[in-house]
């Protein structure tokens, strides 16, 4: 069984992204499933960033540490990650960085410098990159030095290319050397390079030349490595996409017509990807069926998040499937709009990519701190739908379901995800994005409302026929209203509308299938029940297997629908749980709070992580073991 873990690190802007992408593509071509995440600073260029990836035969649900290989494109990477490589693993670096002192690295965070210096000093090692390399070597990590300058010169001579184009191959040299040492045949690396730079022939040629020179060099110095066996996923049409990409794809498949946004990490890449595909040519058969041949999505960068949500509301009123995307700070500004969408019963989808707060916090780091924020957003008793996706595949389908639910229940739907999922790449099979599973349900949308139409007609399920603005004389408002949408403060009419809106949320719980509410994975009789939501899903599923190896039988309750909370279902599942441990990336234990509020179950322990890094499989294991030892709250803190 292959389980390959890699970190590629260097200065932001120094080629980490394309190196990471080439690594991902090489391993996917080789037949593996991959999961790869970007970790970077809130900085344009120069600060440390890294690509963390894992390749397995089955789907990796989690990233992990220590890794098998570290590619360090600068001294800071060596000094940041030297404790994250397993014995027997490799580090690829340029010997020229050895002399660099910790203190001389300006971008490196001062607290990290102090920790590194203390560690190296305690081992009696110099506080330089060389010290860190020695520390690795003493723990059985193989040092693979690549004299980059000499190699670049060779690339330039052999490819007869100006150094300008050769300069773009520094990352490729290191990456190819590392992949080759890990047993990836050069053919895959070269094909991945061609895919990465498709359409740019010169760049491909140069990088292929660099890959060959790097491979030749390490083969000569370190000998021929054992070839990594091919994975089981060869000969397939696959997709490699980030969570951001998949949500954008889901929206387009769902028929989104309007996307408003104000740029904010980690949502901007979703908008960007959607914009890239906002204009789609339909094939002739489909064009005939729908009556147009070019599908156009109006994607507008607004002046702020207030405008974004209110424009999305406007477009939804006019009949478009309408959405906006943001993260915590922007969602704070959208709060009043959410409340309006509840009161005026507007079907909008708000994609909320959580990032590390409070306030501007750590914009490019992950967390699950907006659970309560999303549920309780909007003033004045504003019930709404909140769905959290557990992984890439769920993110795709949930983006579609969110629109269905928004229109069926005429309610805002908050699609809750996080920065980790946003930027993590995953490999997917065609069957995983299966359109036969996708329906488009527009609920009680009516094309010809006719005379005497009442927008807020009281009905048994609370849901009124919905006409588009422009098709009937009507009134939509955020003021309390009568059935015809006219403002009212009549106590009886008011109550009617309050309970009408409540009935819709009851209906949500009634009609949604269990798999969209809460899902129990594993043996119902397990000794421990882990409860979580969002992107921890894969991590916990991986950790369950590891726990089993340690003799702990755990199951996992993933809560997908956070509002309205499926309390009967969750209470029922938890009633037979022997020990309940919540796992979440926030300080307050927001999910634990909801569990208590809705089911009366007080978790026996809470495993939390708040350092802005994704949670790793071994951390869940460590957390559960400590919890079983009686710890009430376990804080896990891995990652760089």
């Amino acid at each position, binding site marked *: 069984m292959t389980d390959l873990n890699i970190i590629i690190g260097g200065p932001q802007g120094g080629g980490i992204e394309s190196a990471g992408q080439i690594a991902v593509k090489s391993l*996917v071509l080789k037949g593996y499933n991959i999961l790869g995440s970007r970790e970077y600073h809130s900085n344009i260029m120069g600060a440390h960033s890294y690509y963390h990836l894992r390749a397995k035969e089955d789907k990796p649900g989690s990233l992990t540490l220590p890794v098998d290989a570290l590619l360090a494109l600068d001294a800071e990477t060596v000094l940041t990650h030297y404790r994250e490589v397993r014995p027997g693993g490799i580090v690829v670096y340029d010997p020229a960085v050895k002399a660099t002192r910790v203190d001389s690295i300006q971008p490196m965070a001062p607290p990290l410098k102090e920790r590194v210096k203390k560690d190296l000093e305690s081992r009696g090692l110099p506080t330089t990159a060389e010290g860190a390399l020695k520390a690795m070597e003493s723990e059985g990590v193989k040092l693979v030095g690549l004299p980059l300058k000499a190699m670049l010169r060779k690339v330039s001579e052999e490819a007869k290319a100006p150094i300008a184009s050769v300069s773009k191959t520094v990352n490729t040299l290191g990456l190819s050397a590392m992949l080759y040492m890990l047993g990836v045949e050069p053919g895959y690396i070269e094909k991945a390079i061609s895919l990465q730079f498709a359409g740019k022939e010169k760049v491909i040629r140069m990088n292929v030349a660099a890959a060959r020179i790097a491979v030749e060099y390490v083969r000569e110095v370190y000998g021929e490595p054992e070839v990594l066996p091919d994975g089981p996923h060869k000969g397939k049409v696959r997709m490699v996409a980030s969570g951001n990409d998949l949500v954008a794809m889901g929206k387009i498949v769902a028929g989104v017509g309007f996307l408003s946004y104000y740029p904010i990490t980690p949502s901007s890449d979703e908008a960007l990807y959607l914009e890239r595909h906002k204009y789609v040519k339909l094939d002739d058969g489909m064009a005939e069926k729908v009556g147009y041949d070019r599908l156009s999505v109006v994607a507008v960068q607004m002046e702020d998040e207030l405008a974004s949500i209110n424009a999305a509301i406007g477009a939804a009123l006019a009949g478009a499937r309408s959405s906006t995307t943001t993260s915590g700070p922007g969602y704070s500004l959208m709060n009043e709009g959410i409340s309006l969408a509840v009161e005026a019963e507007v079907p909008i989808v708000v994609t909320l990519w959580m990032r590390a707060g409070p306030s501007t916090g750590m914009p490019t780091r992950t967390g699950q701190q907006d659970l309560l924020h999303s549920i309780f957003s909007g003033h004045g008793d504003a019930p709404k739908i909140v769905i959290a996706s557990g992984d890439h595949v769920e993110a795709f389908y949930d983006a579609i379901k969110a629109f269905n639910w928004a229109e069926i229940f005429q309610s805002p739907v908050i699609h809750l995800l996080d920065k980790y999922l946003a930027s993590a790449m995953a490999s997917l099979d065609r069957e995983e994005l299966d359109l036969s599973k996708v329906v488009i349900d527009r609920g009680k949308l009516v094309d010809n409302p006719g005379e005497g139409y009442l927008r807020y007609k009281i009905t048994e399920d609370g849901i009124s026929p919905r006409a588009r*603005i422009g098709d009937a004389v009507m009134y939509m*408002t955020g003021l309390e209203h009568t059935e015809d949408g006219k403002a009212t403060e009549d106590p009886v009419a008011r109550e009617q509308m309050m309970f009408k809106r409540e009935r819709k949320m009851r209906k949500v719980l009634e009609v949604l299938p269990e798999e969209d509410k809460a899902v129990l994975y594993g043996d119902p009789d397990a000794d421990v029940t882990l409860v979580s939501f969002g992107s921890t899903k894969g991590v916990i599923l991986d950790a369950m297997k590891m726990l089993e190896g340690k003799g702990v039988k755990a199951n996992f309750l993933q809560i997908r629908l956070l509002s309205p909370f499926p309390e009967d279902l969750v209470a029922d599942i938890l009633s037979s749980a022997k020990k309940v441990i919540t796992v979440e990336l926030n300080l307050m234990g927001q999910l634990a709070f909801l569990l208590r509020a809705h089911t009366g179950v007080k978790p026996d322990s809470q495993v939390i992580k708040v350092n802005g890094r994704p949670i790793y499989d071994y951390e869940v294991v460590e957390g559960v073991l400590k919890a079983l030892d009686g710890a009430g709250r376990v804080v896990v803190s891995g990652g760089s």
Partner: protein
Amino acid sequence: MARSWLEYKAPAWVQWCPGCGDFGILNAIYRAVAELDIPPERLVVVGGIGCSGRTTFYVKGSNAHALHGRAIPMATGIKLARPELTVIVAGGDGDLLGIGGGHFVALGRRNVDITVILFDNAVYGLTKGQAAPTLPAWIKTKALTSPNIHDNVNPVLLAFSAGYTFVARGYAYHTSQLKELIKTAVRHKGASFIDVLQPCPTYNNVMTNKWYEERIYYVGEDYDPIIRTREDFKEKLPAIMEKLLEFGDRIPLGILYWDQTKDSFEERLEKIMPGYMQAPPGTRRISVDGRPIVDPFEVFKDRVIVT
């Protein structure tokens, strides 16, 4: 005329104070849309929050009542989803220029085909007469505890510099002239702005009908605000600037600036996505037999890898 303005009167109690300028504006709107023969279900009046925002409920239309300050973005969403509709924004000076000032500017940049009618009473009517962004400095209305020490913005100049392609000023009690301004504004394909001066008899005891009548005048035949070419712009700009800046002892009314050279936002969208207008987001079909019409493996080829 095909329709009587009475057809646009929604059955509602119009709850403004006696003597409020809003009545004049409302009446001018009724008559303008009637003369333009806009079917009520195709007419969208988007109101803000404030006395003026209530216009939403008084005009028979397919209307939306927005949050305080957010009428413009809501109207933008509606218009871009269904570009064939007539969209009018009705808002106060606090709503459009105070809390919603950012959106006011952004609409100019986009030049979406929306008509913005500013109910300019220089006070916050609905919250008891606080100073609004258009109240000149050192005026002390009865509701203020001390004179206003904020300067006033110039709405028409702001609209001009933000990029509105039709900028006019009217007076609430001159309903016939105002009706004509509204008609021209609605017909104009782009962001139109009408600053409608109006007394607030309840809270603004300084800028009264008398105060306005002593100052306002209509720009004459000799004043040409129309820009048909870029050369026009250079040539006419000095005179236009003079009118836009004039506010004090004399206040010009009428069309102050009308740029006919610019594409509306919808036209710009059509340029980058031909076919958008024919199948706009609000009304186009998004499924066939309840199934999506696009396949991710066909559309998102940039993420597909054949192993």
